[in-house]
């Protein structure tokens, strides 16, 4: 059998070890295959943000193993994790997290710069991904000259520019109005259709319902892991 894209084994994250310890993640086991569209849902304090940090290689677990694309990343050092983040993961954050004094295209180029891609290829890839999110006419605008929806589209373009296998979206519609939210979710679905693995972290059941698989987290444990039966039919409707 082919190795899963993401495989988490007995993952624990404990803050303040000792008497007042907080088990943000408590022996979590999860497997996500290539091309899946997974929503991870949980209330605030459920441990979903910690889980997202683990999946995104922004933090290291207290114990347990995390295999990303076949490699154990749970024991990696800071600099190795930077390389993994750059190559394997595209982040989309709730607050967009664009760099304010860079234009849209410059923001999209950032991960490519850290990848060490030459200028010409970089420009080409950035333009390509901005076109995919429909912002080819706003490439030289700065974030504060764009609407929230547009900024999030820039962030998506940045996430996909380096063509990572995993898209990790943390409450991507949290700061957006409903029209923009719909637009962003539409783009995420398109990403999924092109073969990307999309992981959506949210607290909103309505948004989670858009995904094909819904993993519910509570008190640092996986409470349920369900396939969304409506997903395929909805797709056929489109």
């Amino acid at each position, binding site marked *: 059998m082919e190795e899963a894209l993401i495989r988490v084994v007995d993952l624990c994250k404990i803050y303040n070890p000792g008497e007042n310890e907080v088990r943000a993640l408590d022996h979590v086991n999860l497997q996500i295959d290539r091309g899946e569209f997974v929503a991870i849902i949980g209330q605030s304090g459920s441990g979903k943000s910690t889980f997202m940090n683990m999946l995104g290689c922004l*933090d290291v677990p207290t114990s347990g193993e995390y295999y990303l694309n076949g490699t154990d990343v749970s024991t990696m050092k800071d*600099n190795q994790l*930077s*390389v993994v983040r750059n190559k394997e993961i595209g982040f989309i954050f709730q607050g967009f*997290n664009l760099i304010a004094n*860079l234009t849209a295209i410059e923001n999209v180029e950032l991960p490519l710069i850290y990848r*060490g891609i030459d*200028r010409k290829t970089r420009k080409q890839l950035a333009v390509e991904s901005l076109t995919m999110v429909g912002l080819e006419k706003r490439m030289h605008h700065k974030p504060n000259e764009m609407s929230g929806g547009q900024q999030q589209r820039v962030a998506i373009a940045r996430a996909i520019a380096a063509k990572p296998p995993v898209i990790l979206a943390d409450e991507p519609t949290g700061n957006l109005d409903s029209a923009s939210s719909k637009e962003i979710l539409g783009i995420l679905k398109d990403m999924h259709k092109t073969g990307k693995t999309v992981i959506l972290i949210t607290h909103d059941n309505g948004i989670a319902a858009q995904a094909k698989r819904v993993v519910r987290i509570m008190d640092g444990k996986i409470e349920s892991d369900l396939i969304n039966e409506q997903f395929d039919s909805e797709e056929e409707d489109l």
Partner: protein
Amino acid sequence: MSSIYEYIKMAVHNIMANKGRSFLTMLGIIIGIASVIAIVSIGEGTKNQMNSEISDVGGGQIYINCSSDAQTDDEWILPGDIEAVRAMDGVEGVSISETYEGETVTGKGNFKLYVTAEGQDAKLINNANMKHGVYFGENEVNEGKNVCVISDSDAKRLFGTDDVVGMTLDVTCYGLTKSFRIGGVTTQKENGTFVSYTYEGMPVTINVPYTAMNDLTGNMDYFYSMTIQADKSLDTQKVADEVVRLLEKRHQSAGEDYFQVQNFQDVMKSMNDMLGMVTAFISFVAGISLLVGGIGVMNIMLVSVTERTREIGIRKSLGAKTSSIMLQFLAEAAILTAIGGIIGIVVGIAGGFGICTLISASMEMTIQPGISPSTILVATLFSCAVGVFFGIYPARKAARLSPIEALRRN
């Protein structure tokens, strides 16, 4: 290497995004570098000017004096000694130079006089340029003629004109008065800053043959000092040693140290040393301001790291390594100081020229600032070193931030 270029680009981008603050940060470096360069160039310029003036007057000159408590003919320089030294190889001329105070009255009023009694080679020794008439020479000295030489500026003070050849001057010394015919007028050396400088009320100097002074002073058969012009191509010190040996032989006083040598090279050297020390001290103080400027850079970079914590988090989440962030911030500090350094060099050179012009104008002399490439090189390297050194701490602080911590902050 291409990635270094990217970090430099990022750094420039950030500097340009905060122009006002960047300039203020640079100001400390600018002031530091500029003051070091200005001070060193003025110091060098003064030194060069002094050296050229001294070597103009005193190149190859040897000054020999007797002890001030000399009592006997053995210890004094005698007229015969002068002739003997004059006949030596490598000696181009010898003169004595004994100065007496006197006074004179002209149509312009009463003047104090310095009467300098000299020998036949006085013109050579004084490196005099004649404006009118001639300097006295061998004949005048041998015959004890009552002639004198005066500088053009002193002539103007006495008579209102420098065309005074043939006029007579009544000189009173020790209560005796004697008339001297003015035989020549010399050109006061321009820019004679350190050597001859006139001020209001300064006594007028006239030069006369020493033989002519005997009537007034009665002591022109022994002297306290003599000045020798050596062949400039020879080692002055060697000639001086030979002169002393000859004198000691003539006076049969070997080892008594009656005759002491002082040459202008010694004077030049000690003056240079002193000036060098003053320059070094002021440069040191200016260097401290450079250090303070460097700390200013560090301070601003630290503020910048705090302000841009979120940006650092974003960059790290996108795959920036610790070294990438470090290089970006280091490049920023280095570029800030490098630009500050370049502006400082320009301001320093301009300041050096400006201050030298000011000094030249106010003190009737010309000082060219001595700007050497080595000063500029050292200043540039130093400012870059300051930038890198004071950039390291903030850059490390930035690079070490954990991405989640950094992203969490607003």
